[in-house]
């Protein structure tokens, strides 16, 4: 009996049944099969002392890792390079990583290795701070309202100061945490949007300061306030608590937060090596499950955020004063001493599908790597898609999500189940441009400062 000989309603029934069987076949492994236990149970994860290591800390302290049968040790690392190297050589099973690290490692900028991620830890969470001296010079150029600066502050105001310094022969230096850090790209984006050239990377010169108006260099996060106080750098872009620390200790002022530069910017990821992910698929899913629960807990209520602040203030986690940490994690942000503004989205851990590893996020970081010359040659759009698919593993995330739904710890609407990995046209950038994850080369051609799609570094 052929399909066409069936009546219309029967055809619809068959089509519906096939669809049902099809989707349930996908869901079947998680629902019908016995719970798959982790291959490796004792795990060591690295983190850097920043407030957005919170998902790892909460998953540990609230026993979410234990619930998955995992015995996790959290170990603070000295800096981002040590952290990445230790994941690559197997001393750490996984780590709190900058979104650019798995991508940079895969494309071979820095240590070459296959690093993948199935989990985006948070959105936003960074800010750009400058020293008091620079802020005092900038204030004349910043639009004010009622005696207070109007936010977001654009880099145009900084450009006036930098130009003045150039005239006096003084170099303007800023710090960021790692060459493939989100901070590097956000700082460069903000500077370029204000007309300042943040410098290029070339095949021969990986310091990133070719033709720079502002010289950027790497400083580990905890040393940034001290380095700025010493005058070695005049400002920096870093995660918390290092901006609020500078503001509350009176050594600088925060100019702009990265959610004002790009609303809902993906920030940290949970990175593992491809080899580890392939050898330990059940463990990977179990880890992602625990982290999803942790992020959901963090965004569930302000009371939870307050509890998280107290946990992070312990000296083996972030260690800064609870007041400094709480300044940015509980719905506010203090730009300069005494000027606290409400900013509930400074840290987003679960809302707006923050934890799903969207391919378009990976593509954005790759475009910025290309914009500044870390990717020296032209690449077709297909290359960006392929690289994103190599590094981001949404299949693992969905498996974890489905397992949580089956266990009743989450609901279907928490997750973007129907997405193809691309967010569509994204706005919310400080320069008003729009980003379409499927057209990276077109996106690159829109910028006035930065390599165009076809330029050589």
């Amino acid at each position: 009996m052929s399909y066409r000989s069936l009546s219309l309603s029967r055809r619809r029934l068959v089509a519906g049944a096939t669809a049902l069987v099809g989707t349930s076949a996908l869901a079947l492994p998680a629902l019908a099969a016995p719970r798959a236990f982790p291959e490796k149970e004792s795990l060591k994860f690295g983190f850097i002392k920043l407030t957005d290591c919170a998902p790892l800390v909460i998953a540990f302290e609230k026993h979410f890792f234990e619930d998955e049968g995992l015995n996790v040790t959290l170990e603070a690392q000295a800096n981002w390079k040590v952290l990445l190297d230790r994941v690559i050589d197997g001393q750490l099973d996984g780590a709190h990583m900058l979104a650019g690290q798995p991508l940079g490692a895969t494309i071979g900028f820095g240590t070459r290795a296959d690093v993948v991620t199935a989990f985006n830890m948070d959105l936003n969470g960074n800010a750009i701070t400058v020293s008091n001296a620079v802020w005092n010079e900038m204030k004349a150029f910043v639009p004010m309202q009622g005696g207070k600066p109007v936010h977001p502050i654009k880099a145009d105001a900084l450009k006036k100061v930098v130009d003045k310094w150039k005239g006096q022969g003084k170099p303007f230096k800023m710090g960021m945490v790692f060459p493939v850090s989100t901070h590097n790209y956000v700082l460069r984006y903000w500077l370029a949007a204000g007309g300042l050239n943040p410098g290029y990377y070339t095949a021969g010169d990986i310091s990133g300061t070719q033709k720079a108006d502002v010289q950027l260099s790497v400083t580990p996060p905890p040393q940034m306030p001290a380095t700025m106080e010493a005058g070695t750098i005049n400002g920096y872009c870093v995660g918390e608590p290092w901006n609020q620390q500078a503001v509350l200790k009176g050594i600088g002022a925060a100019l702009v937060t990265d959610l004002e530069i790009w609303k809902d910017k993906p920030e940290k990821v949970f990175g593992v090596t491809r080899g580890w992910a392939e050898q330990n698929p059940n463990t990977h899913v179990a880890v992602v499950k625990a982290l999803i629960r942790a992020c959901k807990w963090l965004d569930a209520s302000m009371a939870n955020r307050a509890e998280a602040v107290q946990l992070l203030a312990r000296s083996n986690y972030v260690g800064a004063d609870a007041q400094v940490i709480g300044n940015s994690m509980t719905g506010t942000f203090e730009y300069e001493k005494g000027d606290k503004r409400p900013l509930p989205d400074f840290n987003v851990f679960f809302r707006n599908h923050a934890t799903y590893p969207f391919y378009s996020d990976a593509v954005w970081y790759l475009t910025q790597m290309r914009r500044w010359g870390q990717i020296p040659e032209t690449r077709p759009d297909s290359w960006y898609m392929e690289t994103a698919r190599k590094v981001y593993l949404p299949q693992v995330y969905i498996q974890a999500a489905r397992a949580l739904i089956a266990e009743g710890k989450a609901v279907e609407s928490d997750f973007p189940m129907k997405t193809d990995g691309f967010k569509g046209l994204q706005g919310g950038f400080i320069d008003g441009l729009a980003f379409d994850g499927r057209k990276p080369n077109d996106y690159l051609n829109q910028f006035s400062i930065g390599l165009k799609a076809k330029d050589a570094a």
Partner: protein
Amino acid sequence: MELAQKYLRSAVRDPGARLRSLGFSLGIPALALALFLALWAALAPRIQTSLGAVPGPAQVAGQAHALWDAHFAERRKRADFYARQEQRNKERLAQDPAYRPRHFSYNGAPTYLDQILTSLTTAFTGFLIATLVAVPLGILAGSSRVVQAAINPIVEIFRPVSPLAWLPIVTLIVSAVYVTTGTPLFQKSFLISAITVTLCSLWTTLINTAIGVTSVDKDLVNVGKVLQLPLSTRVRKIVLPSALPYIFTGMRLSLGVGWMVLIAAEMLAQNPGLGKFVWDEFQNGSSDSLARILVAVLTIGLIGFGLDRLMQLVQSFVVRR
């Protein structure tokens, strides 16, 4: 011990004299200490750093208390962890009798007391290795003019080298040679710190042992030669008893140097002891950090003092036999 005996003897003979000597040896230090604390409490709040004012004795005592409490809180958390694990194992066994119960060890951060123990263990390991190398070598150098002339330039060159200069080399060598899979017996950071302590403290023992051996009475050495004693007997019966005070002086000095060096080595090698505690507090930059660092400073000083006294006790026990 000698002090107590002295007091007892003098107390029996002349209570007035006893009171005077007591006043001298206990009263004056106590007075000086009180003066020091008062000066510290007065001057410290005047110095403002970016981490707040320099802490006075009250804050330091407060943080010492906080560290003590934190230790016990952590021990309670550890007990809770094992209780939860037992519970989970029971539940799993009830569901699936073939399940192998897991017995993980607790993964919390080391407490302050754990860190003190780690530092002591590392220091003693380094010191022990240094002694095992330096004493035989020193005896050899003291006995033979050839050996002494041979190793003298090497010792003189390496003696002033700071641990910070040794550390990168030691780190690279240990990382290359000590390949570990799974959970190793010794952590790399432990080995690096211990070896750095060894490298810095063995010179003093070596030199003092050599001096001790060369200053053995020539008559005794001749007796050994005349009786044609075997080497081991000569060393045990003639050389060692005379040289022992020098060896122990060398060991005491070595231990002191080693303890100092350990703190620097731990900071750089990230061995989870007092050095790492100080470094982490500095990096954390909380308003309690300075007070906690001062607690660590005082702890390091007190332990160093205790170790020195311990060595003196061991020396007086061994040498008198």
